[in-house]
């Protein structure tokens, strides 16, 4: 150990030793090493299941035209242009006022960081020009070959190295998971899935070759220390930074796959191609939660989700049951704290959608997305309080969070108590609609790169 440990490093080592000690009983209680590659292993209490914890009636699921249905694209259609104009006025007035009065989280330095976070990223492309990549063909060697398990291993290693947090795989099936690929991309182009050899794009459509059957789904971490400063510019900044980081990850992963000799079809624009949380659930990266998005055992809510299609055969990863959806039944924390009251308080998820912005065919706690989006005009940015207050959003360094994850997965009877303990530990004084933590304080913290912890190995929960 070096002699000049900083306080941070000291505390980190200190934490790890104890976490290791705390792990012992859980190893005894059933954690085991499997023959999976290290990058895909998980503690045994996270059960792999054949069907996800979200009930799905695939016959009722239809491919969604993102640009025509979601609230981010069709807000005016759902609430009317007059309302949008009114909200825009409110936004303008609020932003002007907040900046001039130096409101914490909206000072000039917060604006500057927010706009900086969205920059410096590779443009998103559905596919890259093969001429721009060093393919095996160009090198005069055959394509990479290996078992689907080997493929899963090397893609996971590469994606992680390029900045992804967790990685999972879905083999698309025409009657089920293929329906999670948008029928139209956000820009309105039709997404055709055809029996052709190569991907293509023209003014009206994009073509996905049928043989690009494998969806690589990956999460990218957000920073809790910023997210807990939502709803402010400072808080929203982790969303922007994660998007720009994901753009670079996408381009590099495309280069990697093409460098192996295979297709790599990415998001043509932010959030294009398919329903990310759904693919996240189907690839076992997490479960669908009350805030109607992916909740993961490793990073809780603190991740964004992205996807890519390839024709390199990859071994699929199964959906999981880590007790998370079940936990949500006894916890309404995200809904309680949501300033726009957009989230469901129902005990059980339902088949009934809230509006045209939802896609029927699965059981969920559907949100009133128009309320959520309306509120963003007030904040002048986005929100994310629901993600920040979730009990699973903690950094998982304290071994108590390991115990919490273990109990959540094994003894649902503790869920209510665990939620109460979380209230006491993290949010006893959080005011409704206010940041959980002081935005000004953030500038004085000593945080790791990107504000995220990357020393957590793959798929470990502490």
């Amino acid at each position, binding site marked *: *150990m070096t002699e000049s*440990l900083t306080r*941070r490093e*000291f*505390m*980190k*080592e*200190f*934490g790890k*030793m*104890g*976490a290791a*000690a*705390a792990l012992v009983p859980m190893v005894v209680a059933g954690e085991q090493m499997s023959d999976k590659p290290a990058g895909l292993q998980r503690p045994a209490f996270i059960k792999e299941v054949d069907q996800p914890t979200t009930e799905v009636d695939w016959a009722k699921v239809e491919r969604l035209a993102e640009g025509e249905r979601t609230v981010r694209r069709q807000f005016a259609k759902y609430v009317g242009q007059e309302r949008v104009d009114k909200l825009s006025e409110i936004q303008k007035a609020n932003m002007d006022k907040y900046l001039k009065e130096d409101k914490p989280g909206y000072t000039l330095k917060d604006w500057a960081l927010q706009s900086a976070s969205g920059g410096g990223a590779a443009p998103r492309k559905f596919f890259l020009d093969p001429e721009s990549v060093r393919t095996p063909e160009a090198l005069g060697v055959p394509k990479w070959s290996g078992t689907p398990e080997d493929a899963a291993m090397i893609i996971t290693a590469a994606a992680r190295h390029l900045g992804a947090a967790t990685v999972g795989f879905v083999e698309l099936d025409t009657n089920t998971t293929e329906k999670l690929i948008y029928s139209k991309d956000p820009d309105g182009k039709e997404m055709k899935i055809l029996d052709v050899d190569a991907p293509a794009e023209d003014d009206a459509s994009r073509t996905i070759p049928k043989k690009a059957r494998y969806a690589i789904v990956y999460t990218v971490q957000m920073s809790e*220390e910023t997210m807990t400063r939502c709803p402010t510019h400072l808080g929203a900044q982790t969303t922007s930074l994660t998007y720009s980081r994901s753009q670079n990850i996408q381009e590099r992963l495309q280069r990697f796959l093409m460098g192996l000799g295979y297709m790599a079809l990415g998001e043509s624009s932010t959030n294009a191609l398919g329903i990310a949380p759904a693919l996240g659930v189907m690839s076992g990266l997490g479960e669908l939660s009350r805030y109607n998005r992916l909740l993961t055992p490793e990073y809780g809510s603190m991740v964004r989700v992205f996807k890519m299609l390839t024709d390199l055969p990859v071994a699929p990863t199964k959906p999981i049951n880590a007790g998370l959806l079940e936990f949500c039944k006894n916890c309404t924390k995200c809904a309680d704290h949501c300033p726009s009251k957009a989230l469901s308080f129902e005990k059980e998820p339902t088949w009934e959608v809230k509006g045209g912005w939802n896609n029927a065919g699965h059981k969920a706690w559907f949100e009133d997305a128009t309320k959520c989006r309306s509120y963003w005009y007030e904040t002048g940015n986005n929100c994310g309080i629901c993600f920040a207050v979730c009990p699973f959003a*903690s*950094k998982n*360094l*304290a*071994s*108590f969070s390991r115990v919490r994850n273990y109990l959540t997965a094994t003894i649902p009877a503790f869920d209510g108590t665990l939620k109460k303990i979380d209230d*006491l*530990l*993290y949010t*006893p004084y959080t005011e409704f609609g206010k940041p959980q933590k002081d935005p000004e304080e953030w500038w004085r*913290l000593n945080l790791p790169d990107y504000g995220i912890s990357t020393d957590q190995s793959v798929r470990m929960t502490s």
Partner: protein
Amino acid sequence: MSVTLWLILGVVVGIGFFLAATKMKLSWYEWLLAVLGTLLVLFAIQNYGASRLALESRAAGLLLVMFGLPGVILAAVGFALPWMRARKAG
């Protein structure tokens, strides 16, 4: 340094249990209380340090008290009962 800290803690705990085993007579339930109490105290210390690192000082303090206090009480009872017995006998 941190490794050293856990090492020191280990040595202290080790010596404590060694003395208890050789110099005092603990009944089975006193052993149980002493071991449980010590484990809780160590758990509390880990949670305290890690929560401080996670910049959650309130959680750090609460977890320390939540697990540390019962831990100290259990361990104290486990070690104190035989000690008092020994003193009475002596």
